[in-house]
C-alpha cells in the first residue's frame, strides 16, 4: 500500500522539479542573449527588447526556478521522513496555484506588459495580471508550507516524546521563515500594487512599497540558501558514505536562519532617501548576525568530510579532499557550489558595509554577487542533486552520467569567469540593468567594456551547461527502468552529542522571528507613516 503512496508522492515532487527545469531553460536563453547584447556581439531580435528579457530572466531564474525546486525538495523530505497514508490534494492545489500564477505573470511579461524587472519597483506600473500572478505563486507556496506544518503536527501528535526527523525540522524552519518573509510582499501586493494597478487608488507610497519589498527581498536569498543547506546537511554526505556530523548544530543552524533572515532588509536601501541613518545602521548590525549560522555550516560540512575520511583511514587535508567522489555529479555539483560560496560570502560582507556599498551599489558588482551565490552554490546544488533525485523519483537510470558530470564542471568554470568579470566591471563603475553601457565611448565606459566580453564568454559556457542539464533531465525520462535506487537521508554520526530540547520548539523560534522582524521594522515604518509624504502616480515608461 505504502509503495503505491510513495509513487503518487513522487509524481508531485517531479512536477515541481520539471517545472523548475523548464523555467531554468527559458531563463537561460534570455540570460545568454543579454550577455551577448551587453558585449555588443549580437543585438537582441528587434521584436524583443533587452529589458523585457531581463525581467523574464530575473523572474524565471530567481523566483520560479528556485521556488519550485525548494517546494519540491521540502515536500519530498517531509513525505519520506514521515511515511504514512496521506491525501495529496493540498500538495497538488499548491502546485497548480503556483503554476497558474507563474503562467499569468510570464505571459504578461513576454507580452511586453510588465517590463518592470523582478523587483517591480513602483511607480513603474505593470498590467494587473503580473501582480496577481506573482501573488498567486506566493500563496501557492504558503499551501506548501501548510502541508509541511500539517505533516509535522501529525508526527508530533502520533509520536509523543519523539524528535522531529532532521530533514523535516530543516524543511519546517525554511518554510516558517519563508511565510514570515513573504507576508511583506503579500501586503505590498494586496494593499498597494494590485489596487493601484487596477486603478482603484490613484497614487502609491513609493518608499513604503520599497521597504515592504526588501522586507521580503533579503530573506528570499536565505530561502534559497536554506534549500541548499537542506541538501548539504542531509543528502551530500550520502555520496561519500558520510554522516551528519551533528544533529544539534544542524538544527541550530536552521533555527538561527529562521530568526536572523528577516530583520535585515534595509541593508538593500542604504542609498535611499527617507530612511533615517539609525535604522540603516540597526539593520547593518543585524545583517552580520548571519555570520554565525554560516560559520557553523562550513564547520559541519568539513567535519563530516573529515570524519568519513578518517573512518576509511585517510588523514590530512588534501588526502581528505582527494578522497571525495569528484566524479559523481550529485557530489561535484554541490561541492563546486560550496567553493563558489566562499567568494559569495566575501562579496556579501562588502555589500553589507555601507561605506563600501556606496561604491558598488547598483553596479555590475551586485550582479556578479548574486550570480556567484544563487547562480553558483544554490543552482549548482539543485542541478547536481537533480541527478540524484530524478532517477530515484522516476525509477529510471540516469541518462549520460558523464554529460551530467561535465555539466557541473562547465557551470563552475562559466560562473567563475562571468562572475569575476561582473565584479570587476562593477568596481570600474559599470551599471547593472542597462542595455547599452558604452555611453558614447567615454573613458570610464571603455574601461569596463573589456569585462563585458569576458562576461559573455562565461555566459556562453553557462548556456551550454544548461543545455547539457536539460538533455540529462529529459533524457532520464526515457532510460531503462531501475527501481533499486532508494531515497534515504544521511544518518547522524553516532558520536554526536545529545540535542537540547529547546531546539525542538520551532513555534517559539518562529514567534521570536516575528518579534525581531517587528522590532526592526516598526521604527522605519512608523517614520514613513507619520511623515507628510506624497504619493506618486503610476507610469509605463517602456
Amino acid at each position, binding site marked *: 500500500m505504502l509503495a503505491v503512496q510513495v509513487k503518487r508522492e513522487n509524481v508531485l515532487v517531479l512536477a515541481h522539479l520539471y517545472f523548475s527545469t523548464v523555467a531554468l531553460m527559458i531563463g537561460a536563453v534570455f540570460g545568454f542573449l543579454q550577455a551577448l547584447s551587453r558585449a555588443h556581439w549580437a543585438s537582441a531580435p528587434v521584436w524583443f527588447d533587452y529589458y523585457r528579457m531581463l525581467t523574464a530572466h530575473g523572474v524565471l531564474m530567481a523566483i520560479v526556478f528556485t521556488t519550485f525546486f525548494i517546494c519540491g525538495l521540502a515536500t519530498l523530505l517531509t513525505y519520506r521522513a514521515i511515511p504514512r497514508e496521506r491525501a495529496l490534494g493540498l500538495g497538488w492545489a499548491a502546485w497548480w496555484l503556483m503554476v497558474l500564477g507563474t503562467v499569468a505573470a510570464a505571459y504578461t511579461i513576454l507580452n511586453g506588459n510588465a517590463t518592470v524587472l523582478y523587483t517591480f519597483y513602483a511607480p*513603474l506600473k505593470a498590467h494587473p495580471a503580473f501582480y496577481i500572478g506573482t501573488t498567486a505563486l506566493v500563496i501557492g507556496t504558503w499551501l506548501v508550507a501548510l502541508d509541511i506544518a500539517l505533516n509535522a503536527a501529525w508526527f508530533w501528535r502520533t509520536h509523543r516524546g519523539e524528535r522531529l526527523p532532521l530533514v523535516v525540522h530543516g524543511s519546517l524552519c525554511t518554510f516558517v521563515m519563508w511565510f514570515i518573509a513573504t507576508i511583506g510582499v503579500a501586503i505590498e501586493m494586496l494593499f498597494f500594487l494590485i489596487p493601484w494597478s487596477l486603478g482603484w487608488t490613484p497614487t502609491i507610497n513609493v518608499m513604503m512599497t520599497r521597504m515592504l519589498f526588501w522586507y521580503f527581498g533579503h530573506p528570499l536569498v536565505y530561502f534559497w540558501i536554506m534549500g541548499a543547506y537542506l541538501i548539504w546537511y542531509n543528502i551530500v554526505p550520502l555520496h561519500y558514505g558520510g554522516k551528519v556530523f551533528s544533529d544539534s548544530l544542524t538544527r541550530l543552524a536552521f533555527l538561527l536562519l529562521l530568526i536572523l533572515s528577516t530583520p535585515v532588509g534595509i541593508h538593500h536601501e542604504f542609498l535611499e532617501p527617507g530612511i533615517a541613518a539609525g535604522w540603516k545602521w540597526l539593520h547593518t548590525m543585524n545583517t552580520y548576525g548571519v555570520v554565525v549560522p554560516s560559520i557553523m555550516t562550513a564547520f559541519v560540512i568539513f567535519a563530516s568530510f573529515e570524519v568519513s575520511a578518517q573512518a576509511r583511514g585517510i588523514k590530512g587535508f588534501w588526502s581528505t579532499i582527494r578522497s571525495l567522489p569528484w566524479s559523481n555529479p550529485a557530489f561535484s555539483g554541490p561541492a563546486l557550489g560550496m567553493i563558489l560560496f566562499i567568494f559569495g560570502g566575501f562579496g556579501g560582507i562588502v555589500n553589507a558595509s555601507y561605506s563600501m556599498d*556606496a561604491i558598488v551599489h547598483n553596479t555590475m558588482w551586485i550582479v556578479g554577487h548574486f550570480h556567484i551565490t544563487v547562480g553558483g552554490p544554490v543552482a549548482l546544488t539543485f542541478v547536481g542533486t537533480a541527478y540524484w533525485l530524478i532517477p530515484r523519483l522516476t525509477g529510471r537510470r540516469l541518462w549520460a552520467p558523464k554529460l551530467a558530470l561535465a555539466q557541473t564542471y562547465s557551470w563552475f568554470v562559466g560562473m567563475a569567469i562571468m562572475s569575476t568579470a561582473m565584479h570587476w566591471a562593477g568596481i570600474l563603475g559599470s*551599471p547593472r540593468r542597462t542595455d547599452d553601457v558604452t555611453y558614447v565611448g567615454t573613458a570610464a565606459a571603455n574601461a569596463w567594456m573589456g569585462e563585458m566580453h569576458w562576461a559573455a564568454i562565461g555566459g556562453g559556457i553557462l548556456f551550454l551547461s544548461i543545455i547539457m542539464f536539460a538533455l540529462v533531465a529529459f533524457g532520464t525520462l526515457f532510460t531503462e527502468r531501475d527501481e533499486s535506487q532508494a531515497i534515504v537521508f544521511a544518518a547522524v554520526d553516532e558520536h554526536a552529542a545529545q540535542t537540547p530540547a529547546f531546539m525542538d520548539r520551532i513555534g517559539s523560534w518562529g514567534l521570536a522571528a516575528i518579534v525581531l522582524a517587528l522590532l526592526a521594522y516598526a521604527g522605519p515604518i512608523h517614520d514613513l507613516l507619520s511623515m507628510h509624504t506624497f504619493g506618486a502616480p503610476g507610469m509605463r*515608461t517602456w
Partner: protein
Amino acid sequence: MHRAEKIWIGFGIGMLIVFLIIIGAAAVSENMIPPSHVQTIDPTKVAQTPPFDHPGLRQVGPKTYEAYIIAHIFAFDPPSITVPAGSRVTFYTTSPDVVHGFFIANTAVNMMVVPGWVSSATHVFRTPGSYLLLCNEYCGTGHHYMYGSVEVK
C-alpha cells in the same frame, strides 16, 4: 555538545562581536554612519518647487557648491555641471516620474532617486577630468541613454 563544536561556535560569535565593535566604534568616533537624507517633495510639482524650479549649480562658499539636478526619463537636468578642481559639491536630486539612480563613476556618489523624496550626497572633486554621471536604476526603454557629466577643470 562536542568540544570542537563549542570552540567553533565561540569563534563564530567572537567574529561577530569583533565586526559589531568595529562598526559601532567607527559610527561613534568617526561618525561613519550610513548616508541618509529625509526630505519630501510633491513629485507632480517638481518643476514648480524651489529650488528645483531652477535646477543647476550654486556656489555657496569658496570652492563649495550645491548642485540641484532633476533626474527624469531619460535625462538629467542639467545634464552637465562644471566645477574647479578641489571643489566640495553637495548634490540634491529628485524625480518627477519613476525611480532613477544617480551615480558618478569612480566616486562614491551613488543615490537612489525616488519620486516624492529628495536624495543628497557630498563629494570633493580633487582630480581634474570628466566624470561620467549615469542612471544606474532601470527606469524604462531609454534608461541607457540617461547620462551626463561632472566636468572638473
